């Protein structure tokens, strides 16, 4: 049964998978992508690599999206059975307060913080997870130190907006699956890389790029939109189309490749926004893909998102489809730049 992009996103956003613990996500994506590709494997880092061989004379193209989400790792349990944690990736303490989480074991909990009058006093060290245990022993029967939790929440559609946890970067994963299904015959070898540890480092994408050894790569991630009060100073709007990243704190776009993406988008009448992130902000898989092996020409095509790092990240359905369309147009082009 084929699923729509939105249906796939519903399924992907519900899977537990913080950085370093992406195996459940990989399992589902493997099942979803297998009908559309020639080869699927998991590398030593845990990256899921799916290859759709080209018809003839094409290039080797890597499409990457990271599978992991932010979360928290258990470091200590108090005598009262409260779990103290450290963030995994950019999980901010003030986004955590009051959130429900689920641990790898399936145990659910709620995050709460000591009373703080000032936002500056909010700190992960004063934040705990209550899983309903009444003693240290009881808590440790349910979770182990080193276990990780992620925020839970239902993915909901509000008009054309999709709201829920984990859209960074399950939205990118869903777009890649859409491309895999609808691409059809293509001259290029297309290698889909669903990567690990994109929220920290990033790390997995570099290992994936090393073994894939592509001629060029497109990294599909989500970008913070700037269209909210006192939002990030980025000229990217929700619903305005995919955002072509020119730079962030760790990446400079490949000029020729970027120009080509812009041209292909223009030819296809696909709106493209320009994303420029001031240093030192921003991290994405491209920073390690671009320097892997002998170096890889890499473009970042981001899906605009509001409220990143919360349990209610927001993306726009039109942007998801436009990103998939742009990728398919690119793969249908000679990819000369």
């Amino acid at each position, binding site marked *: 049964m084929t699923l729509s992009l939105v249906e796939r996103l519903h399924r992907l956003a519900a899977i537990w998978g913080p*950085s370093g613990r992406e195996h459940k996500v990989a399992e589902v994506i493997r099942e979803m992508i297998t009908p559309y590709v020639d080869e699927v494997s998991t*590398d030593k880092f845990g990256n899921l690599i799916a290859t759709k061989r080209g018809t003839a004379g094409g290039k080797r193209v890597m499409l990457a999206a990271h599978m992991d989400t932010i979360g928290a790792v258990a*470091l*200590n349990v*108090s005598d009262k059975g409260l779990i103290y944690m*450290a963030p995994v990736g950019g999980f901010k303490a003030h986004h955590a307060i009051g959130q429900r989480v689920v641990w790898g074991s399936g145990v659910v909990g709620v995050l709460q913080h000591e009373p703080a009058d000032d936002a500056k006093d909010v700190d992960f060290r004063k934040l705990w997870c209550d899983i309903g245990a009444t003693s240290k022993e009881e808590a440790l029967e349910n979770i182990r*130190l*080193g276990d990780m939790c992620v925020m839970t929440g239902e993915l909901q559609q509000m008009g054309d907006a999709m709201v829920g946890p984990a859209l960074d970067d399950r939205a990118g994963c869903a777009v890649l699956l859409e491309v895999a299904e609808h691409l059809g015959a293509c001259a290029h070898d297309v290698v889909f890389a669903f990567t690990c540890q994109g929220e920290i480092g990033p*790390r997995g994408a570099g290992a994936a790029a090393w073994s894939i050894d592509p001629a060029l790569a497109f990294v599909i991630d989500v970008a913070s939109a700037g269209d909210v009060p006192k939002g990030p100073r980025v000229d990217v709007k929700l619903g305005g189309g995919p955002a072509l990243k020119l730079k962030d704190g760790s990446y400079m776009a490949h000029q020729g490749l970027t120009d080509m993406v812009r041209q292909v988008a223009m030819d296809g009448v696909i709106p493209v926004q320009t994303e420029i992130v001031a240093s030192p902000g921003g991290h994405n898989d491209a920073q390690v893909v671009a320097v892997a092996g002998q170096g890889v020409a890499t473009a970042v095509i981001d899906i605009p998102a509001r409220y990143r790092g919360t349990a209610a990240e927001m993306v726009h359905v039109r942007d998801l489809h436009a990103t998939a369309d742009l990728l398919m147009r690119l793969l249908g082009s000679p990819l000369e730049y």
Partner: protein
Amino acid sequence: MLLERLSNACGISGREDEVRDLLKQELAPYADDMWTDAIGNLIVRKGNGPVKVMLDAHMDEVGFVVGAITSEGYIKLKKIGGLDDRVLPGRQVWVTQKRIPGVLGAKAWHLTTAEERGKAIPFDQMYVEIGCKNREEVEALGVELGEPVYFATTFERFGEKVVKGKAFDDRAGCTIIATILEQFSYPGLTLYGAFVTQEEVGLRGARVAAYNLNPDVALALEGTGSANAVGVDPADTISNMGEGPALTLMDGSAIPNLRVWEELVRLAAANGIPYQFRRIVGGGTDSGGIALQRAGIPVCTVAVPCRYIHTNAAMLNLDDLNAAVALVNQFLLSVEKGDFRP
């Protein structure tokens, strides 16, 4: 004991020669092959089996280099690796590999203001004095810019179990690997002891070693902080000296490979080897450099708790060191038998 000789040896990042020579001499009788690579890593191979395992420990220690020599004969220092200014003034040091004795001096206590007394002396106000009256006298002793400066610490035993010395980070790890190579054989493995360089300045040697050796699985053996001491909240002790080797949950450089980590936990529990978790996520170890090589290498850090790490006098408990050896041995046996397939 080997830890004593390794601790007394001197080798800041990039100047690991003395440590490397000692390990070469020590391990020559047990090695099937041994070489030094382009970045100075000493690789000791034992066995020729089908599964390649790399045990990593870094040879370098934190310390200083001579940054300037003043016309009055004082030596200004630059730090190599992370060092806490609060614990530096007044320390005895050794200048250059020749171990010229010196003292880390600062403004005399009776000249300080009340405000200055409540604060750590800024590093740029410290200097080393070696009893010379001018630059010419200093230079005549062979002290040049870039020459290493070390804490003048000699290894000692504190009773039966606890030892004190400098550079337990990471001569403890070097000792674990050397002990494994000396005491055990694993014909089913190609075991590489990788004694690497320049960890303290950016996990550099380990990257090169892991890239070249391309192991199926690796362990980084380390010394890590331990603060189960006076006035520290039990939640903040990082690891507890005397309670077994610490397995990293996550640090600033790596999340351990989940399967390797779970196998280590399983083996420790099954064999009655005491262990604990490192309860802090800061800092980095060679695992971070190893994990990212080529198509990715499964790796986990196992660390011996060390109090006062990165100071002139660290302490560790020999039971923790021995338990780490036992755990690494069990892991290697498990890989050799095929119980754990990387």
